[in-house]
């Protein structure tokens, strides 16, 4: 029984090796070169899946990327489980494991199929109607149930072990599609000497020549010709041929995204190969040769396994050597299905009958078919089919109706309603399609980019015309892109296949008023009746019909369904098709894996990690780290037996008692230099700078033009024309951008140069009463006495023999220094300071202790205690504004009426009535805890800690009219209790500031 539908002598892989595979644990064998679909069909398997909504049994519709039904899971191992793979695209390899989806407990018996019986419940728009109320039920009941029952495959639950690569490429001519037209265009362009990239989604080039058995080009059959051209192109140094590659997106300025499947067809891919490769191609000219896709006929139960596109059956026969049945029927409104019937008949398959909707089909192909002894039923329709898991018969009657029915047994039914040009990429390029009334097709109309459509996607039917058009287009594209005149001769077509048009919309038996399930969109289970219902319920535009019915919204993006859906809607609206409109095509053309998009940017390569010069020391000394933007910062340094709380308490106390060393390297640093440096600083900061003496520092406050606080930091003036500016850690890059923006565009007359020096200086903060004693033995050439170097001053000299910018400043409220040294010396100087510190009982402290120490002093952190809506006055730091200044960024914004209105939230301190209770940062504050919900919230907690130095909890908060509420009791409602707090000043420790010189 194995492989029993393989026809000896047919197909192109007759001598290929056997490939074993399993489908739902059952072993089968196929041959190398097969797709999973052709291998299953060779074994007589048509039933491969269940549908999305009704769980109806489904078979294989197509032989390509348009497949809506035959979606399976491909499992390589526990981590490599790819859902929703189209069996018609997946190449077979030895050992392939495939499983069907969306069925339970088995494919042939599925409990979910009850949805099919209950289908009125799931009609068009059911998502919007059935489950609207009650709201709570949506979350707890409807959504989980729907998610469970619906959906397609199952996502893998382990990290993807494969890797994915990415490349950029440039070329003069990019040809998308490697069928006859694409090959001819690529050849013409390549012979002109320009760089050409030819892309095709199949493993081999040739496109529709895979099945068009009658085509003859240059004295060869079409397929053989195609392979010859492909080989010739691959050998040319200016040509890159990418097979198994899909052009999924066409973006601005001829930028095209390609995804190349590198290993999905291999039995055991090596880890040295990426699974997929993303190509981002910029082309001078793009040639679209994307072909056309056959449409199915829309009739009752047209989704039964065994019913497929005529071109697919022909492909399985002519390319793979597989008969899709032994006794097939054909249902068509189009000539091309006759060619399929003839090929099958010649291969020894019985063709039971051709049912043609057209009254008097005529022409060569029809004559040949008749001569071959195949019955043709003109002017008739298939109105029903027998069989559930596989078609067993078709019932035929005159298309105009009547009781003259006849049931013909068949085991497969080939259908063709005509061909839809694949204008997806053209449409993505923002080209406008135009409806051709004569052939009832949307064809490329107005172009938006430097591209050209040829062949099937341009509505060109005859192969010889295609070839002329393609060759000319290839030549012109190359010439327009700067190529020379081509030498090659145009390929000559000797025999051709000509297909006349077909039909759009529902076939007789599925017309308005009927209740049959005639599927338009197989993947989303949308029937002709659903589309009509959408119109009845008021949808007028196809965009609305699409969303209401979900027609064309599945992963196949309606490749087979869009035109039928549109025609049915237009018919129901009694309007012309172009008036109802075509939905917009969007990238991706076929689904693209996340892996392909993400490439190498995952895990530790997702975002750069920044480490300071002292990082390794901190690591060796047991620091716990926290992420601050891209930085890794030492959070606290636990000693043996300490938890975070104990370590942080010890660090806070030690700093105030003796001293602590803190790595402040992540602070942003900008060197502002030039004769107009002070004038520039005056404009960018609220503070006055002109009169600041060299050697002195000042707290700088930066606003945005709207008057809100943007950043802050201590600035040291090193010389009349040189400032050492520090910024917050998170603000470094944007402050630099902000400064550059003003310097380049608003104040270009100022002679100033800005340099980011954040990475150049390592910064070691030494804070605490013993800080001077610690640095003293190491500093050379700087008098660090209080008299010579008071608080807020800066000196240049040496420390441990290396240059330093030594700041006397404090973010702890204690006497303190910040030692800036070139980053390369950071760790060495830290080690030396650490050794000195040990003599005085100093500790290393991390960001947590730093936060607490500054909060004890009421020093704000921009971005924590401010949030982009806080003014200088709100923060209570008006003293930082130079009162005599006539201009700085934000000077006007801060005077806007709302920013000076009373009642704004102001920064205050909060003390919990129970000193042991620590508030939650972000918690909301109310005046009256007994008011009804929703309560009026008057503020929120911005910083909150346990302060070991104060022996109680402390907090900062923004509270409406806060400074007028000193001593007031407010309330912080939490899920389990309401916490009473007292409004206080923002300084909790050493209110007089004596410790700065302590």
């Amino acid at each position, binding site marked *: 029984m194995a492989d029993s539908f393989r026809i000896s002598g047919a197909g192109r892989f007759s001598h290929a090796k056997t490939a074993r595979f399993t489908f739902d644990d059952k072993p089968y064998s196929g041959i190398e070169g097969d797709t999973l679909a052709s291998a299953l069909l060779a074994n007589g398997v048509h039933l491969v899946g269940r549908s999305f909504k009704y769980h109806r049994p489904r078979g294989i519709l197509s032989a390509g990327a348009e497949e809506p039904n035959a979606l399976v899971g491909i499992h390589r191992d526990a981590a490599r489980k790819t859902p929703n793979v189209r069996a018609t695209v997946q190449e077979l390899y030895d050992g392939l494991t495939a499983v069907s989806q969306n069925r339970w407990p088995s494919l042939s018996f599925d409990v979910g199929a009850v949805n099919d019986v209950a289908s009125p419940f799931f009609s068009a728009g059911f998502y919007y109607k059935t489950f609207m109320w009650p709201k709570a039920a949506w979350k707890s009941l409807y959504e989980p149930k729907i998610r469970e029952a619906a959906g397609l495959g199952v996502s893998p639950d382990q990290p993807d072990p494969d890797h994915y690569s990415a490349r950029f490429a440039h070329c003069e001519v990019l040809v998308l599609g490697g069928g006859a037209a694409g090959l001819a265009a690529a050849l013409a362009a390549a012979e002109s000497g320009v760089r050409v990239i030819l892309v095709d989604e199949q493993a081999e080039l040739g496109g529709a020549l895979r099945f068009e058995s009658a085509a003859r080009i240059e004295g060869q059959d079409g397929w053989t010709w195609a392979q010859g051209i492909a080989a010739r192109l691959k050998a040319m140094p200016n040509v890159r041929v990418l097979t198994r590659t899909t052009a999924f997106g066409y973006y601005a300025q001829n*930028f095209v995204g390609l995804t190349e499947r590198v290993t999905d067809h291999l039995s055991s891919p090596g880890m040295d190969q990426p699974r997929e490769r993303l190509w981002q191609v910029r082309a001078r000219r793009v040639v679209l040769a994307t072909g056309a896709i056959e449409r199915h006929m829309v009739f009752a139960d047209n989704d039964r396994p065994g019913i497929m596109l005529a071109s697919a059956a022909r492909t399985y026969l002519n390319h793979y050597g597989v008969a899709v049945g032994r006794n097939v029927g054909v249902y068509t409104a189009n000539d091309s299905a006759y060619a399929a019937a003839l090929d099958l008949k010649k291969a020894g398959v019985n063709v039971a009958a051709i049912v043609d909707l057209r009254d008097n089909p005529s022409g060569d192909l029809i004559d040949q078919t008749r001569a071959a002894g195949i019955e043709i039923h003109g002017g008739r329709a298939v109105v029903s089919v027998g069989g559930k898991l596989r078609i067993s018969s078709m019932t035929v009657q005159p298309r105009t109706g009547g009781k003259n029915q006849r049931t013909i047994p068949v085991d497969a039914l080939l259908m063709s309603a005509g061909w839809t040009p694949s204008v997806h990429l053209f449409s993505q390029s923002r080209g406008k399609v135009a409806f051709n009334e004569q052939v009832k097709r949307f064809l490329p109309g107005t172009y938006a980019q430097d591209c050209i459509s040829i062949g099937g996607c341009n509505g060109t039917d005859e192969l010889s015309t295609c070839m002329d058009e393609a060759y000319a287009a290839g030549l012109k594209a190359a010439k327009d892109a700067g190529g020379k005149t081509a030498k090659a001769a145009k390929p000559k077509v000797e025999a051709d296949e000509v297909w006349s048009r077909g039909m759009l919309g529902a076939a007789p038996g599925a017309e308005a008023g009927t209740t049959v399930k005639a599927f338009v969109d197989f993947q989303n289970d949308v029937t002709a009746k659903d589309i009509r219902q959408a119109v009845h319920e008021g949808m007028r535009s196809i965009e609305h019909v699409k969303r209401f019915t979900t027609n064309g919204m599945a992963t196949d993006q309606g490749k087979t369904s869009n035109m039928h859906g549109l025609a049915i809607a237009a018919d129901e609206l009694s309007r012309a098709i172009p008036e109802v409109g075509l939905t917009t095509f969007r990238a991706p053309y076929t689904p693209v894996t996340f892996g392909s998009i993400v490439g190498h940017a995952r895990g530790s390569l997702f975002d750069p990690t920044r480490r300071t010069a002292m990082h390794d020391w901190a690591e060796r000394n047991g620091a716990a780290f926290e992420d601050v933007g891209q930085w890794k910062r030492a959070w606290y340094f636990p000693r043996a037996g300490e938890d975070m709380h104990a370590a942080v308490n010890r660090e806070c106390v030690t700093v105030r008692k003796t001293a602590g060393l803190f790595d402040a390297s992540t602070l942003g640093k900008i060197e502002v230099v030039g004769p107009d440096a002070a004038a520039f600083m005056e404009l960018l900061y609220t503070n006055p700078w002109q009169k600041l003496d060299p050697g002195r520092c000042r707290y700088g406050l930066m606003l945005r*033009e709207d008057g809100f606080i943007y950043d802050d930091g201590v600035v040291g003036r090193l010389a009349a024309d040189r400032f050492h500016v520090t910024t917050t850690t998170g603000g470094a890059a944007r402050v630099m951008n902000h400064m*550059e*923006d003003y310097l380049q565009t*608003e104040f270009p007359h100022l002679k100033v140069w800005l340099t980011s020096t954040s990475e150049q200086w390592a910064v070691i903060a030494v804070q605490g009463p013993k800080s001077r004693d610690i640095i003293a033995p190491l500093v050379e050439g700087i008098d660090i006495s209080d008299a010579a170097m008071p608080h807020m001053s800066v000196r240049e000299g040496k420390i441990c023999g290396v240059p330093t910018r030594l700041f006397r400043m404090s973010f702890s409220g204690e006497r303190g220094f910040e030692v800036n040294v070139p980053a390369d010396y950071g760790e060495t100087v830290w080690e030396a300071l650490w050794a000195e510190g040990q003599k005085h009982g100093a500790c290393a402290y991390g960001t947590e202790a730093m936060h607490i120490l500054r909060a004890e002093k009421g020093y704000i952190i921009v971005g924590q205690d401010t949030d982009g809506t806080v003014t200088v006055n709100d923060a209570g730091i008006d003293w930082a504004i130079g009162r005599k200044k006539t201009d700085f960024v934000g000077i006007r*914004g801060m005077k806007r*009426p709302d920013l000076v209105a009373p009642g704004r939230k102001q920064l205050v301190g909060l003390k919990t009535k129970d000193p042991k209770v620590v508030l939650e940062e972000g918690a909301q504050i109310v005046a009256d805890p007994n008011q009804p919900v929703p309560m009026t919230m008057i503020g929120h907690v911005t910083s909150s800690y346990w302060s070991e130095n104060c022996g109680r909890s402390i907090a900062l908060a923004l509270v409406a009219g806060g400074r007028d509420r000193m001593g007031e009791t407010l309330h912080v409602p939490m899920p389990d209790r309401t916490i009473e707090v007292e409004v206080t000043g923002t300084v909790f420790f050493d209110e007089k500031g004596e410790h700065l010189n302590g």
Partner: protein
Amino acid sequence: MLLIRCPYCEEERPELEFRNAGEAHVARPADIAAISDEDFEAFFFIRSNPKGIIYERWRHIHGCARFFNAVRDTVSDKFVMTYKAGEPKPKKLPGVAK
């Protein structure tokens, strides 16, 4: 991904190297501290948001780091031209019918 011509580097570079910086030719008033609420509103908040030609500021942030101006069509996304910061708004645009 768009290609953008940096008028300082004098070549087309991929969009990844650039950052948009809002509408161009919105000059900060020299006497900003003295202007009325209405004038401040017009300067700071009101932007043209046209369907069609827009004048924008861009920065070649991962290149020469210069700010420059660009004329772009918001319908097609196409850059019509770019020019240096401080240069006047171009009167004639290449390839745009007026």
